[in-house]
């Protein structure tokens, strides 16, 4: 028995019909929305007309009422958003009022909190166009969104309109309990550049250390040289070591020359180990003049404790905090300045065998400063005085073998001979190829002294 119709064809036709109907409805609603948008835009253009006569003012009022009562609130909101880009505050206020009355602001706020990714982005854009207090408050919350793209978009949107108000609120957000929100706010302030400086400077006095730290870092990122006067006093006055570190970093970006001197002071005398360690790192990053010598001296003066070993005797090295971290920071800094592993190892050995005490460190620092003078006679004197410090200054002297003046080089070679440490053998051997005869002579004499001393040490050991 056959039925006389094809079920597959019927089902196919039915599905095709459904699809066609669906597409048709979609096209219809899109056309309807486009037509409504066109009508709404025409009404909005009446808002934009200058209200210089009574008739124009009345026309504007009636345009507002028509927009509020418009049949398609979505089209009305889209058209009114275009009016938000006007510079005329009256038009903007009118547009915001329309949006409030048609509840578009509520919809955007809801989308920003609970919408999909695209809905959130659209809401951010719209609220950015609004730019008033309510909109900025919502956008500030979005800085802490789980999605970093949303947070970033919100931070851009906040700054789109009223920069003063935005900066004020962003600066307050630096103290937010959500670190991510605070950091996104800081990034937004950095983008504002010099405009945001005053707001950031005001946060340097905040009770919240996170706000102070982020403010300092942001000021460093902005990099305005004028900020050094604000940052300098904080190096001594700031009680929180993390903030002091941030201030030191900011100062290094703002004014490298002034920073170098302050960083040396911090490296020697700050009570917190991390500040001292960071100061050494920053000196290396700045490639400040004399940084290499300073770090070598720091290595010589640092404590030789290399970290604890586990009780089970399995010889792991534990680098946690305190002196060992300062030492590792100095070593990392020396590498950054181009010192090779063997030279660093030699410097560590010298430092371990003959660590510098505070008075010796002061004398070594003074002698190193002489080594950096323009006048060759001062540099010769500096090399001579460093030989009196002892083996710990060997690393600094080895770097001075590259001095352009042969008198200085010769004195450095003699000083290394007087110290007599075997670690300087390689450096002295290179001096045997020096173009200047007096340097070669001084190097060979020094080598004989060093070799004899090393041999004597071997025999007596």
């Amino acid at each position, binding site marked *: 028995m056959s039925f006389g119709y094809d079920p597959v064809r019927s089902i196919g036709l039915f599905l095709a019909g459904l699809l066609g109907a669906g597409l048709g409805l979609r096209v219809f609603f899109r056309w309807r929305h486009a037509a409504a948008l066109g009508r709404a835009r025409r009404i909005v253009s009446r808002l934009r007309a200058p209200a210089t006569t009574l008739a124009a003012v009345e026309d504007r009022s009636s345009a507002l009422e028509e927009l509020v009562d418009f049949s398609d609130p979505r089209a009305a909101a889209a058209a009114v958003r275009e009016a938000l880009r006007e510079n005329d505050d009256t038009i903007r206020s009118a547009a915001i009022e329309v949006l409030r009355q048609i509840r578009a602001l509520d919809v955007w706020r809801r989308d920003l909190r609970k919408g999909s990714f695209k809905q959130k982005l659209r809401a951010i854009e719209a609220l950015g166009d609004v730019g008033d207090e309510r909109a900025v408050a919502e956008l500030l919350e979005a800085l802490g969104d789980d999605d*970093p793209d949303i947070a970033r978009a919100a931070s851009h949107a906040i700054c789109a309109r009223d920069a003063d108000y935005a900066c004020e609120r962003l600066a307050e957000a630096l103290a937010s309990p959500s*670190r991510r929100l605070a950091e996104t706010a800081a990034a937004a302030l950095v983008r504002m550049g010099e405009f945001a400086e005053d707001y950031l400077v005001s946060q340097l006095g905040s009770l919240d250390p996170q706000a102070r730290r982020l403010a300092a870092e942001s000021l460093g990122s902005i990099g305005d040289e004028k900020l050094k006067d604000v940052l300098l006093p904080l190096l001594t006055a700031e009680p929180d070591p993390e903030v002091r570190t941030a201030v030191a970093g900011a100062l290094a970006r703002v004014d490298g020359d002034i920073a170098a001197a302050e960083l040396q002071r911090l490296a020697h005398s700050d009570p917190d180990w*991390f500040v001292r360690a960071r100061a050494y*790192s920053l000196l290396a990053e700045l490639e400040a003049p004399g940084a290499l010598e300073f770090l070598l001296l720091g290595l010589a003066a640092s404590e030789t404790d290399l970290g604890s070993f586990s009780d089970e005797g*399995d*010889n792991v*090295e534990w680098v946690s905090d305190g002196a060992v971290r300062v030492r590792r920071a100095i070593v*990392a*800094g020396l*590498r950054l300045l181009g010192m090779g592993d063997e030279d660093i190892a030699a410097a560590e050995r010298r430092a371990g065998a003959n660590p510098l005490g505070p008075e010796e460190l002061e004398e070594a620092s003074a002698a190193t400063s002489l080594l950096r003078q323009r006048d060759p006679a001062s540099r010769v004197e500096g090399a001579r005085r460093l030989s009196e410090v002892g083996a710990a200054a060997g690393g600094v002297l080895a770097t001075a073998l590259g001095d352009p003046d042969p008198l200085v080089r010769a004195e450095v070679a003699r000083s290394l001979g007087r110290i007599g440490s075997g670690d300087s053998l390689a450096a002295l051997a290179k001096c045997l190829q020096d173009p200047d005869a007096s340097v070669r002579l001084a190097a060979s004499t020094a080598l004989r002294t060093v070799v004899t001393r090393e041999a004597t040490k071997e025999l007596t050991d």
Partner: protein
Amino acid sequence: MSETSIALAHDVLLALCLVGAWAVICFYVVLTIAGYLYSREARRKRAPEPDEWPGVSILVPAHNEEIVMAGTLDSLLHLDYPRERMEIIVIDDSSTDRTRRVIEHMMATDRRLKLVAIPPGLGGRGKSHALNHGARYARHELVAVYDADNAPEPQSLRMLVAELVADEQLAATVGKVRTLNRATNLLTRCINIEFISFQWIIQAGRWRLFGLASLPGTNYVIRREALARVGGWDAGAIADDAELTVRLGQEGYQVKFVPYAVTWEPEPQHWGVWLRQRLRWARGGTYVVRKFLPRLGRLRRRELALEVLHLLTIYHFFFVLLVLSDLIFISGLLSGAASGPVAGPLLTLWALALAIFLLQMAVSLAIEGEHTPLNLLVTVVMYFTYCQLWVYICAKAHYLDVVRQERLSWDKTARVPRPAQSPGN
């Protein structure tokens, strides 16, 4: 033996294979539905943030990780967690490259970074060994573990800790692992789909139905007290995560899957590297099965049996089924008894199984928002290529374990530099 009896034997074995396979398929269908339901619940019902965040010691075992170390440490330093309640302990396990230098360079910029350095000659004994070293120096009550090539999302640690603190029965919370280099080539796309489906079907589904999830090796937070109670990580286990899961369960602890705490990691881009990695996982899984299968009846939490049986299924049962059915087909061809008294739409059943597999993958991709036409096409290709390699992996694992009796040793996966794309794109 007569032709009829051979044919009967074929058909009985074939029927057993079909029944066994379909039982597993139906179970996974149930898991898929449960996983979908959990995806909606987990989004709605998040644990409240604690009034005071507990301290977390993050352990990062590292062996020759110079390519990826800086990026990983940068991601960890940017976790949205109170700075003073967090420390990051990098365990340099006898690295011979510039890993230590990279670590020391970053240590100079942040005081939360610390270093445990195992000297050359004493290390290289695997991740568990390194983690046990690191845990000895952890000073906070919670321990988090991240692999050296991970990029956790900023909010992931907060989510894991909040869930852990909210339920005292939990020993650990585990997040989701996503593939950073998923668009690189066919292999990485397959791995991406596999990871998504594993986490939404197995992890989410089992948690929803049985309160069971397994540690994934990275992106998890565990109570230090629980870790100490079970004796730390098993240095003899290559699959340290699966093994620890069962031991935690033995002590009555639970492990919860927190799907919106996400970390991103690059996966192998070359087939050779991938095969070695999966071989290690297969052998590690077999170690766990051998260790706990005899004690299945004595496990304190009966749901733990599922973990052991899951490993047994994927590394043994499926492999045996596939090999048996291939043998039946070949012997049937040889003896001319390919069609016996068991009649049935075998091809239709196979097509239905394939359709269910594709549907399950599509559901898990849709939950993740990655149900693109390309991914769906890759899923089809994956069934006939990537999935079939499992036979080779299981066969080789069995050969090494049973025939050669080769000792399990740690084989590190070669690292891949992070792609320039951001994780969400």
